């Protein structure tokens, strides 16, 4: 099931021929990706495929070796520091760890970007912060310190902070990792609801297939430094690619084998003929 080709106005983020390596290890070898406005887009793939790195490239925190990343028409890596910071005010980012400032309370964490970038009078700022906290269900936790929050609550506070400046897009780095079922359900619902209510564009990087597929409009699967398949969750579940099917259904064996490749056969190893040094 192929979606219609998006026009330039539909696309918020456009990545072209992106190459990036860490030392000698190539991470991306020609990623092409278009993320549409107003949608929840998921970038999925096994651990170590560079999903978080891709978000850092979109946010301008890393410099690609080749290729371009355009966000809302701006070439991220051609911008000066002022232009980049201006662009980042239109981006929100939810880090896997939450990245809350540990010396500030929940209220002050959410107020932080507002205090840094605006001169709002304190009563207005207070109302705005309470609105954001109410949106994530944590208005009552405003006086708590980050150390007093559970993992799920910390991410919700981080989400309230990410939307504090009313951004155009929000990037989520592994938002569901390590969450209990209730927190997971809350986060899944929040991401979709905030996207629709606030008219955001959301990019989720995750390997939690079921949760992500529940809310994503489109999924791009990363493997071997490239996007190997893109489509709606339904299309990817029914993919003809064995690799994509194994990933989407979480099958223990397939093109990615259950067994890590060994130098010798199992029987040979047991009999000590291979001489692995641990016989």
């Amino acid at each position, binding site marked *: 099931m192929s979606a219609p080709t998006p026009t330039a106005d539909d696309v918020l983020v456009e990545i072209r021929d992106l190459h990036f390596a860490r030392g000698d290890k190539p991470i991306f070898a020609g990623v092409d990706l278009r993320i549409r406005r107003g949608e929840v887009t998921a970038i999925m793939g096994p651990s170590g495929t560079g999903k978080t790195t891709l978000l850092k490239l979109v946010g301008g925190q890393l410099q690609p070796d080749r290729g371009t990343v355009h966000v809302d028409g701006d070439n991220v890596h051609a911008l000066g520091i002022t232009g980049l910071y*201006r662009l*980042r005010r239109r981006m*929100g980012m939810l*880090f896997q*760890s939450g*990245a*809350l400032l540990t010396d500030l309370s929940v209220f002050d964490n959410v107020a*932080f*970007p507002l205090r*840094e970038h605006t001169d709002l009078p304190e009563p207005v700022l207070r109302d705005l912060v309470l609105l954001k906290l109410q949106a994530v269900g944590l208005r009552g936790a405003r006086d708590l310190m980050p150390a007093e929050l559970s993992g799920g609550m910390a991410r919700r506070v981080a989400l309230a902070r990410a939307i504090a400046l009313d951004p155009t897009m929000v990037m989520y780095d592994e938002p569901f990792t390590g969450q209990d079922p209730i927190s997971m359900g809350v986060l899944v619902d929040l991401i979709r609801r905030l996207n629709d209510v606030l008219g955001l564009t959301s990019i989720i990087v995750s390997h939690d297939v079921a949760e992500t597929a529940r809310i994503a409009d489109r999924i791009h699967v990363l493997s071997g430094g490239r996007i190997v398949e893109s489509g709606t969750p339904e299309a990817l579940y029914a993919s003809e690619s064995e690799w994509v099917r194994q990933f989407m259904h979480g099958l223990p064996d397939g093109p990615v084998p259950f067994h890590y490749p060994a130098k010798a056969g199992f029987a040979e190893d047991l009999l000590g003929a291979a001489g692995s040094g641990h016989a």
Partner: protein
Amino acid sequence: MLNGLQRLGATSLEVFARLGRGFLFLLRALAGMPALALRPGLVVQQLFSVGVLSLVIIVVSGLFVGMVLGLQGYTTLVNFGADQSLGVLVALSVVRELGPVVTALLFGGRAGSALAAEIGLMKSTDQLSGMEMMAVDPMRRVIAPRLLAGFLAMPLLAAIFSFLAIFGAYLVGVGLLGVDSGAFWGQMQDAVEFREDILNGVIKSLAFGFVASWIAVFEGYDAEPTSEGVSRATTRTVVNTSLAVLGLDFVLTALMFG
């Protein structure tokens, strides 16, 4: 032999690369300083953290260093019948050398290590990255206020240290060992020059404050974002601060009094 040379080369390259990163880092931090004029609260907060919270160790150390200096000075001077000059001996030792140097060493161990650990942990928990993504420059918001606070706090701490060291020597020398109080203060007043002794001591403190704070914030910012990396950064802060302060003290002393 070749392996040894290779290791030496690699270590030298790493040292020069770190020095280069350190200088670039300093330039970026200094560029963030003018913005602090609009937000003095950030510096005041850090002055409390690196200055006020270091007071206990500075006060106690200053008092004991002075008491020991009084005792040792008296037992030596009394052999030459010069025990009434104890005040001069203590004041010159403390104001010219011990005050700035010991304060800087204590600062490195107390405030410097805390700064490095705090910034290293902020890095390892993505707080610095988070600020960048909120379009807040960590160099301006986190590094510059800490660097300036360390620079300003050091001469104040050194002054408190020196004052208490002289007071400690007074307690031992005059209170316990019978040195004449008038001679203690009078000779000190005659011998200690404002420009030659006190001002040079303040200049030393400012230089040590700058170097110690620079090392601390750079080590934290440059730390590998792991618990082991933060631990190494903290250790390096204390070691490098101590070496830099002692080396710089020799250079400054040679320039000022040589």
